[in-house]
């Protein structure tokens, strides 16, 4: 019984993380009916922001040598949390603006310029790698030159591109963005695993024979707070209401004077910041390896969790995440090799019974 309870607690801890990531998936899906495959990679970026903040940008103290610095570290950790949320929100907005908006509104001039620059980036890096001196100035110059050449070329090539409504298309675009972030991550951060050192004091205690760990509890508490804030935003604020309006009917929302593009941006920012927070917390408080593929598996699991709960349904995502975490944990304690399979089998079974997920509304197509 105790062992069961313990396993359950572990499941909830994992599930909270899935839930945080799943919320981002589900919000975007609710608003745009798009599987934002890049969401897991935003989570990865959050972890990397955390890594660089903890090891280079911010003056964290090594607790094993300065035990008195705990208070300072806690303050800095909070700053890091906001920093990764902020940077990830910006990333989310950028992704939406230049990868998904062209799908809705057509490929505009500004998009051509942006992608021209993006294509120029690896070329620039290549020029940088070629020059033996590796002078930063030359590199920057080459980048600007190539970027300026690429922009009009792109802009010219892509005149009069109409928006596409194909779902498959949107999916492949999202996968493409995910691949850019992963492979770009390998080029920028390197593929070798990185670990965030211990930044917070840890304490272990047991209650009724069940082991608790302070850093895990922190994750749980912060996750709960963030979800509560999200719930408040979605239910009671103007942009939150606009979000819900869009998820019901984007065209009607547009006609009612809602600036849909801005609200969609906001949705992405919200989802991405949650993923960023989760990425930082997981990397910093569980000290698992931070690699460019950090978000692949959790991203997929979280997405499955979102679908499980009913894509587009916010409480559903939280519930789906928790269920996934608990079921995985229970299976892993007995048959660990089937852990990943169980996630999918559970999904398949639930979707066959309830095609719209646990809390999703089953809307039959109108004839």
């Amino acid at each position, binding site marked *: 019984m105790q062992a069961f309870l313990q396993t359950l607690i572990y499941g909830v801890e994992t599930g909270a993380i899935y839930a945080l990531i799943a919320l981002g998936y589900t919000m975007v899906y609710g608003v745009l009916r798009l599987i934002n495959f890049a969401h897991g990679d935003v989570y990865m970026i959050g972890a990397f922001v955390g890594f660089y903040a903890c090891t280079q940008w911010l003056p964290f103290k090594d607790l094993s040598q300065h035990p008195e610095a705990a208070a300072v570290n806690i303050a800095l950790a909070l700053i890091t949390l906001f920093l990764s949320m902020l940077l990830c929100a910006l990333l989310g907005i950028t992704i939406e603006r230049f990868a998904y908006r062209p799908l809705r509104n057509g490929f505009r001039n500004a998009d051509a310029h942006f992608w021209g620059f993006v294509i120029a980036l690896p070329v620039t890096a290549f020029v940088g790698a070629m020059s033996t001196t590796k002078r930063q100035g030359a590199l920057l110059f080459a980048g600007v030159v190539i970027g300026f050449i690429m922009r009009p070329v792109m802009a010219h090539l892509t005149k009069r591109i109409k928006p596409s409504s194909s779902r498959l298309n949107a999916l492949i675009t999202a996968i493409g963005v995910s691949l850019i972030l992963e492979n770009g991550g390998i080029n920028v951060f390197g593929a*070798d*695993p990185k*670990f965030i050192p211990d930044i917070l004091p840890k304490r272990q205690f047991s209650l009724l024979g069940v082991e608790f*760990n302070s850093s895990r509890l922190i994750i749980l508490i912060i996750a709960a707070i963030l979800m509560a804030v999200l719930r408040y935003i979605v239910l009671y604020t103007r942009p939150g209401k606009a979000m819900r309006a869009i998820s019901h009917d984007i065209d009607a929302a547009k006609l009612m004077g809602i600036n849909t593009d801005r609200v969609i941006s906001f949705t992405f920012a919200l989802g991405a910041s949650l993923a960023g927070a989760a990425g930082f917390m997981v990397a910093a408080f*569980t*000290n698992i*390896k931070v690699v460019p593929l950090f978000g692949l598996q959790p991203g997929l699991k979280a997405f499955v969790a979102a679908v499980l709960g009913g894509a587009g349904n916010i409480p559903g995502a939280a519930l789906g995440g928790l269920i996934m975490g608990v079921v995985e*944990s229970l299976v892993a*304690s007995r048959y660990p*090799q089937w852990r990943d399979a169980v996630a999918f089998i559970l999904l398949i079974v639930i979707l066959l019974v309830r095609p719209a997920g646990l809390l999703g509304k089953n809307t039959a197509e109108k004839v």
Partner: protein
Amino acid sequence: MIQLRQKSSLFGALLLGVALFGIGCKDKEEAKPSGTGKTGETTDTASRGNTVTGDTIKIGEYGSLTGDNSTFGISTHRGIQLAIEETNAAGGINGKKLELISEDDNSKAEQAKTVVQKLVSNEKVIAVIGEVASSRSIMAAPVCQDAKVPMVSPSSTNPKVTAIGDYIFRVCFTDDFQAVVAAQFAWDQGYKNVAVFTDVKSDYSKAFGELFAKKFKTLGGKVAAEPTYQSGDVDFKAQLATIKGATPDAVLIPGYYTEVGTIARQAREVGLSVPLFGGDGWESDQLIPGAGIALEGCFFTNHFFSHDMTEPHILSFIAAFQKINPGKQPGALDALGYDAAKVIIEALKRAKSLDSVALRDAIAETKDYQGVAGKITLDANRNARKEAVLFKIVGKEFKIFKSYRPEQVGL
């Protein structure tokens, strides 16, 4: 509408043309030099091995320079490069310079095979170095065997690799040995009841665990529990709780450092405080950052190399290494990459002629070569008989704790 249609067709045709042109071009280019006595003969590429032509001796390397295991590939590559550069700086071999041709297999088994084919049949390399991961070595080795080009693996420890054929060698010990050492060590330490926590995704880990269990049982020990995990997992607590329930004296984790640190931390979190020990997959400067203090006092078996060692040949290796890679400490994989290249280079010096068949014979004769990761003698099964060393983790350092020779564990 019509215009659009034509445009798209033209675009398609253009793409097709470019693709065909690309393939066509390469064929012609490559076909010319080999096609002196063209017609009538069937292809002679793979039947007699490769011979050195021109002023350079081409040596191929394939490794995981990108992808999941890129750290292993990159480390090994550094060592190989060092050996090649040293030799070239010393004037090459018989006045011929060495040329290293590296191919990336993206940590994927199917690509490993393709790139080795490229090395062997296009680049006509005289020998191939690679891979770290046994699964990829196993996929690529048959290509070398068929083409009669010797392949030297720096650190594939799975016994099956060299069993593929007489052209496949390795300069490291095998898992049979390493696992047996681990078992002997555990017994010597007085552990009677050991849990084994293996990575089911890794063949290395599975074989290690099984061989360990077998030997440990014959010594009289008991395997308390055998749960598994998968590399890439981030949560191991459910399994660790199971292990804790079995109350072992120690836990063997034959995995890679990428997970071991996390496992160790979570082991302590679930209240499992017994010593953990493992194999050469632990060796990395990232092990301690990953584990924090959770691995204090734990052990792992490894190749006979440490940057703490003070033998002159090791000191000079470290110095040379740091000249090229300032601020970096070489690890066992660097050392083994270096040794693999060196074994080939030494054999080239001894070889009767500069072709891959003669080179194979010369490599097979390698005896008592003093590599940086231990003395190398290749046995009849083309495996290196080497010492294994046990490191103890003390603070942020790996200290040599004990070492075992094959004879000492009854091999």
